């Protein structure tokens, strides 16, 4: 299954590792912050509804 | 030419603090703005001076006719009293700084560095700057801070001379300046209804 990368195996695998890793980090960070901010906003909206 | 303010609303950080303010200031007249701390006196003066745009309403007869004095005097401590004054005179295209030195009793300090002056002396120098601007409408924010009684009297006399020469003054202050011709304008009734900052409105 695994293609033979020959002498460049490290460069290719490291590229995919770094590239995909950074994308995953970016996506996870974006999603986590989105969730956190959304939760905060809902909390504040609930509170302001109760009061006002 | 009159300074005419109509239905002025001013904002601090995008939040309107005063609204519906209207007044006229004719040549030879002085108007004293009164009101509790934080009611928007400084903001109003900055708006009239053109440093920030009005939130609503119009201001006529301001612009290049205004000489503005804020909390900070804009003095350079490494320049002498004369050099500080002469600089502002040159910026405003006037030449004679002698009357300003005389009226604010700065003649004895003329060669002193501004950094070596006391707080009250610095303030006097800051106010003397108004005289070298050659502009008719003085807009003054708490001009008497750190002035002693004698200096306040000097200042009041300078303002009265300015009025007598056809100038006018818009002053925010808490104390009685001893300028009988000044009218009092209480800002308290014009407090703006609590509302959101403009930049937040799209998000509410």
């Amino acid at each position, binding site marked *: 299954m695994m293609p033979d990368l020959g002498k460049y195996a490290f460069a290719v695998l490291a590229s995919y590792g770094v590239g995909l890793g950074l994308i995953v980090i970016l996506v996870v960070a974006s999603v986590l912050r989105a969730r956190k901010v959304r939760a905060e906003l809902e909390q504040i909206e609930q509170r302001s509804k109760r009061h006002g | 030419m009159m300074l005419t303010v109509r239905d002025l609303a001013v904002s601090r950080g995008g939040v309107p603090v005063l609204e519906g303010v209207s007044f006229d200031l004719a040549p030879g007249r002085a108007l004293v703005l009164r009101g509790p701390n934080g009611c928007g006196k400084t903001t109003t003066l900055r708006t009239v*001076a*053109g*440093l*920030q*745009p009005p939130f609503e309403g119009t201001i006529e007869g301001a612009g*290049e006719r*205004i*000489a*503005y004095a*804020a*909390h*900070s*005097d*804009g*003095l*350079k401590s*490494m*320049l002498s009293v004369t*050099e500080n004054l002469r*600089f*502002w005179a*040159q*910026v*405003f*295209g006037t030449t004679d700084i002698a009357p300003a030195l005389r009226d604010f009793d700065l003649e004895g300090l003329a060669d002193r560095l501004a950094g070596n002056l006391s707080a009250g002396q610095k303030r006097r120098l800051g106010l003397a*700057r108004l005289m070298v*601007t050659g502009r008719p409408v003085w807009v003054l924010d708490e001009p008497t801070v750190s002035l002693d009684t004698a200096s306040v009297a000097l200042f009041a006399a300078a303002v009265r001379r300015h009025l007598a020469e056809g100038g006018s003054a818009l002053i925010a202050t808490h104390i009685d300046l001893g300028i009988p011709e000044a009218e009092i304008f209480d800002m308290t009734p014009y407090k703006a209804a609590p509302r959101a900052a403009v930049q937040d409105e799209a998000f509410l």
Partner: protein
Amino acid sequence: MIALLLRDLRLAVRAGGGFGLGLAFFLIVTVLVPFGVGPETGLLSRIAPGVLWIGALLACLLSLDRILALDWEDGSLDLLATAPLPMEGIVTVKALAHWLTTGLPLVLAAPLLGVLLSLPPGGYLWVMVSLAVGTPALSVIGTFGAALTVGLKRGGLLLSLLVLPLYVPTLIFGAEVARRGAEGLAVETPLLMLGGVSAGVIALLPFASAAVLRINLR
């Protein structure tokens, strides 16, 4: 405007900061380089033009936050904004004053420091010419950065971060003129480019600086 220029120059001379500090920094950077790369004359003379340019650029950067911050703190900037001077004029004069107190001394000091780095004889003229043409752009770009960060506490580091990428074209063309001059190659093309960058920056950037300053004074 002339009054403002004279005042800024007088302040720079009296407060000592403008002239002395930038020059001293330039000197120290240049002296430190041989400690870092070794005393070999051939190597030093090859990198001398670039080192002089980097040193000048850093010395320029050092004093950028003083361009507007001092006037902001003591309220002069508010008062200047109500004075009959256009904001574009104010930022241009500020940049000019910065150049006269920082850039020009660097241009004049560069040949002396070139001696320390065994700059090839043909290089002196072109190092000076390239710095003379390039440093005004550094001051104008720096004023833009200073206007962006004027109201901020601890704006100094941010100022460097904003300004350094903007310095890249000037540095590249300026150092290239100096290097080619030192190696006795033709300098016309990079010199034209450097002049073009400087002219464009001086003509256009004050408008951006003024716009930014108005926003910050609001």
